[in-house]
């Protein structure tokens, strides 16, 4: 059994067929982390003791034939933005470096109840502020495909851990692209669900109207298995829309003949790296080969999305981070890193008297126009397909001294956060020169994740990129 080839799907079957025990599998993954993660820095905390204890419990259940849980014995990682009861949770910031939550986030609770075993807490940009993992107070995570390069952010550790086969799934959050970008940079599958599908309860808030709670896996099928567990109301998050959850596996294998796919021209027109453009054009051909109808569409307000996002998000950040005063928990505000300070101040400025109308209110109006762009296109198309990043993964250090340059990496992802639309990043190939991963994203109408998975599955089974794995040193 090759640990790299394991998926949630194959592991569940392996347990049922008694091919191995849960303890064997958990030990295997923990050893791999012990051996390789010093080169990648994807974990902030590894919960070896707790994971092995849980594995023993699961093996008892296994011997009693009690394995019905959908994630029975599956090793997972949790982004350190999600509170985990009695397990240190830092948000990758020195403000919370000694913080131990007293409850579990809903997502964590549901994954545990479904049988998953948490191997540890994953590194990310502090407070989820970043696109590269370089804003972590615990050191940057490296890209398993090429350790001089970023794995993308802010869910840097989540993507790296799945790509490196340390976990079979890792949770993440996507406020401006923070799941899709790292997934596309590591050749993994990353979902940003519809805003309002998955509860945000227990996830350290970044921008409350933009935060979307998702996850990264090796395959599309695995990704849908996880969403079946995390989606739906929980009585703790007033922004989760009732009765929208569905069975994400039901029609995943259907063919996509006649499906109408739109390619937003503003995402292709300017500024795509040559490699990204080539890969994207090849990817689009795959959908046509599978019988889908592919046509160009327009999202006219695309060029304003970054400006709109970098007003609304910091404004909400400045409010959400006001609670960190070191009184009830954590260290005081002198422990904030530079990026956090930048975003808090930017948001304070855009919300301040005399500037609120020109910035925040204006941005909220542009947000309406961006949302309407999508709604108009979805009147005639089932999904949209677009690149995730205009560039290849960049070298660690390349953008750290230029915050605005870093913000512009989000240009193709932020619109879906502003409008609330779901989007899935899937592997689409590798660059010619250095074999760096490139992904594409499939964007759908609100609550259409089951359609997105169907399209993604067809693409994945045609291209089989998930079979390629990085060489860990």
């Amino acid at each position, binding site marked *: 059994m090759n640990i790299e080839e394991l998926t949630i799907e194959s592991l569940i079957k392996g347990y049922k067929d008694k091919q191995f025990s849960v303890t064997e599998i958990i030990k295997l993954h923990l050893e791999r982390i012990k051996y390789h993660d010093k080169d990648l820095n994807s974990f902030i905390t590894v919960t070896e003791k707790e994971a092995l204890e849980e594995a023993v419990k699961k093996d008892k259940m296994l011997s009693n034939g009690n394995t019905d849980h959908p994630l029975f014995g599956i090793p997972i990682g949790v982004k350190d933005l999600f509170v985990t009861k009695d397990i240190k949770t830092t948000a990758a910031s020195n403000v919370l470096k000694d913080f131990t939550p007293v409850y579990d986030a809903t997502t964590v609770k549901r994954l545990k109840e479904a049988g998953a075993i948490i191997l540890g807490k994953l590194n990310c940009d502090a407070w989820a502020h970043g696109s590269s993992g370089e804003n972590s107070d615990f050191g940057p995570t490296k890209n398993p495909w090429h350790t001089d390069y970023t794995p993308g952010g802010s869910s840097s550790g989540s993507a790296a851990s799945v790509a490196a086969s340390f976990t079979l799934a890792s949770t993440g959050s996507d406020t401006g692209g923070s799941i899709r970008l790292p997934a596309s940079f590591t050749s993994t599958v990353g979902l940003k669900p519809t805003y309002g599908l998955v509860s945000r309860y227990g996830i350290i808030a970044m921008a409350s109207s933009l935060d979307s709670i998702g996850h990264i896996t090796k395959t599309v099928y695995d990704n849908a298995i996880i969403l079946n567990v995390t989606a739906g109301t929980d009585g703790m998050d007033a*922004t989760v829309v009732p009765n929208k959850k569905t069975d994400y596996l039901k029609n995943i294998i259907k063919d996509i003949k006649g499906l109408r796919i739109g390619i937003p021209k503003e995402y292709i027109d300017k500024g795509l790296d040559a490699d990204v453009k080539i890969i994207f054009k090849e990817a689009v051909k795959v959908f046509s080969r599978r019988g889908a109808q592919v046509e160009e569409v327009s999202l006219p307000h695309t060029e304003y999305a970054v400006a709109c996002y970098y007003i609304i998000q910091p404004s909400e950040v400045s409010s959400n981070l006001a609670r960190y005063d070191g009184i009830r928990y954590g260290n005081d505000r002198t422990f904030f890193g530079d990026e956090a300070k*930048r975003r808090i101040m930017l948001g304070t400025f855009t919300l*301040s008297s005399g500037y609120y109308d020109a910035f925040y209110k204006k941005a909220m109006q542009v947000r309406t126009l961006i949302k309407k762009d999508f709604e108009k296109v979805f009147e005639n198309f089932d999904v949209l397909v677009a690149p995730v990043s205009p560039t290849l993964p960049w070298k660690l250090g390349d953008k750290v001294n230029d915050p605005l340059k870093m913000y512009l990496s989000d240009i193709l992802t932020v619109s879906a956060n502003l409008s609330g639309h779901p989007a899935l990043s899937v592997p689409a190939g590798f660059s010619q020169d250095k074999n760096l991963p490139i992904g594409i994203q499939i964007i759908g109408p609100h609550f259409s994740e089951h359609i997105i998975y169907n399209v993604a599955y067809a693409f994945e089974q045609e291209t089989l990129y998930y079979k390629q794995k990085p060489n860990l040193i």
Partner: protein
Amino acid sequence: MKINIKKIAKLANLTLNSEEEVKFEKQLTDIVNYIDKLNEVNTTAVEPTAQVTGLVNVSREDNSAISSLNQEDALKNTKSKHNGLFKVKAILEEK
């Protein structure tokens, strides 16, 4: 656009040294000049969007039996407590 970094830092409850004031003022000015491009967009009669779900007035029963943090848990992560309370700096002076 000129950003009054001292005023903003005070409003944001952040302490900056003079080096940081210079650095952040420049970086924030660059960013604000970029986001200013939103002024190119015609937003006459456009309703602002605060959140995208369309949900309004979501509430639950006013039931105090629903679990909340007990006192011990609430105090668990503070660095300064006394007699089951958070201890903070004095805000009132003795006359």
